């Protein structure tokens, strides 16, 4: 217990790293997902095929393999560029590699979420908007997007919870997230169980907090929806 108190500042610093990785990744994933959904719903066949390839590959390859490819392969590519321009050696940052990988993988999951949600908004609503004389952008901003978000929210929440847990693998490319801090602290104090359990508790706290926040958002975005009572 004393060891846990002694190491709690660095463990909390690690928790902050984990949270930062998760938050930046989810932002990247949300943007990628929106673009991906737009591509999948577009009338341009090559764009649709390309997005299909992207979502299939990203969801069919383990996140760790993808991360190692981005981290080690990215370094090789970076070296080539550096050699070509005669720059000084730049080392690829594990934070950037981790966020890029997780963001792009979950971008694929968000693509499917958003695609389904866009399709769930009834066409009559959009027609009504146009009948009121709204421009395409106004219809998108006032009608399509807010309602799409309502349908997408459960999926976004699920993906966020999975994403949060998959951040643990960034410890395997050397980023000092809480899993890696726990590993180091466990080795030096000979109490690995205590520290890994502490990491579990921190993850549980993050997921519990997220679930609460998502519940609040759900209530906000489903204002006016009457639930069916059986």
């Amino acid at each position, binding site marked *: 217990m004393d060891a846990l108190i002694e190491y709690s500042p660095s463990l909390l610093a690690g928790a902050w790293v984990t949270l930062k990785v998760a938050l930046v990744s989810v932002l990247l994933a949300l943007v990628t997902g929106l673009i991906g959904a737009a591509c999948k719903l577009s009338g341009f066949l090559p764009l649709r095929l390309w997005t299909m390839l992207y979502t299939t590959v990203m969801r069919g390859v383990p996140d760790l393999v993808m991360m190692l490819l981005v981290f080690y392969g990215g370094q090789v590519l970076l070296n080539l560029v550096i050699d070509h321009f005669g720059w000084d050696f730049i080392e690829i940052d594990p934070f950037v590699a981790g966020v890029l990988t997780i963001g792009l993988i979950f971008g694929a999951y968000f693509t499917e979420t958003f695609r389904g949600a866009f399709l769930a908004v009834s066409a009559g609503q959009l027609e009504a908007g146009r009948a009121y004389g709204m421009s395409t952008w106004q219809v998108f901003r006032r009608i399509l997007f807010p309602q799409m978000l309502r349908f997408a929210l459960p999926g976004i929440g699920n993906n966020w919870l999975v994403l949060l847990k998959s951040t643990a693998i960034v410890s395997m490319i050397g980023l000092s997230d809480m899993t890696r801090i726990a590993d180091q602290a466990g080795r030096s104090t000979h109490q690995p169980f205590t520290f890994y359990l502490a990491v579990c508790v921190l993850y549980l706290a993050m997921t*519990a907090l997220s679930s609460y926040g998502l519940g609040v958002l759900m209530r906000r975005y489903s204002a006016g929806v009457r639930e069916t009572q059986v």
Partner: protein
Amino acid sequence: MELFDLSVITGSLPQFWRGLWMTLQLTGFALLFGFFAAIPLAVLRLSPNRLVAAPVAAYTYFFRGTPMLVQLLLVYYGASQWEWMRAAWEAGHPVWTLFREPYFCALFAFGLNTCAYTVEILAGSMRNTPHGELEAAKAMGMTRLKALQRIVIPSALRRMIPAYSNEVILMLQGSAIASAVTLVDLTGAARDVYSRHFAPFEAFVFVGLIYLALTFVLVGLFKLAEHRWLAHLAPRKAEAGRQS
């Protein structure tokens, strides 16, 4: 330096082959354990007695709320923290010495992890049993256990196939973390090949494609399973010239 040198892959094929075998074993055995342990646990999870249901709910909450990597490290590295565990290792205790083996620890952690998800999937599926089916079972004079065995569990197992196929695929991909505890699975083989030849693209793209192929095989198998066991839930096909 070439960016993609096929001879790196062909020269390391035996290593990849052993890695593939390890990945399949870990995934297969963990899923097998998880599936069969989930059936009784799902029944307990739905028990009206809260003293019975709560421990199972706590178990699934813990394992679904924390990363599998941390669970694996907790089991493998955490075990050595306990005095009695180390004493048991010294004494050569047949059960506790297993916790020194990375292979056993990976199976233990993966099995418990997939079991937790499967319990929730199956319990959700059991909750959706049509009420009339249970009433009919009661009317036939079946006991609660008989109704579970003959009605609730078989139909819940069928209905859980789509959700369970997701879990199987996630387990296959999740097993990639086995190399964190020195096991040489597919990803571990790729890491070895990378560090020996400094060839990240060959190593990781190749195993990535193998994982992708395995995922396709699983998706195909589950399509067949759905066709076989969920045919009665498929949308009805229009029959030409016969309307009722």
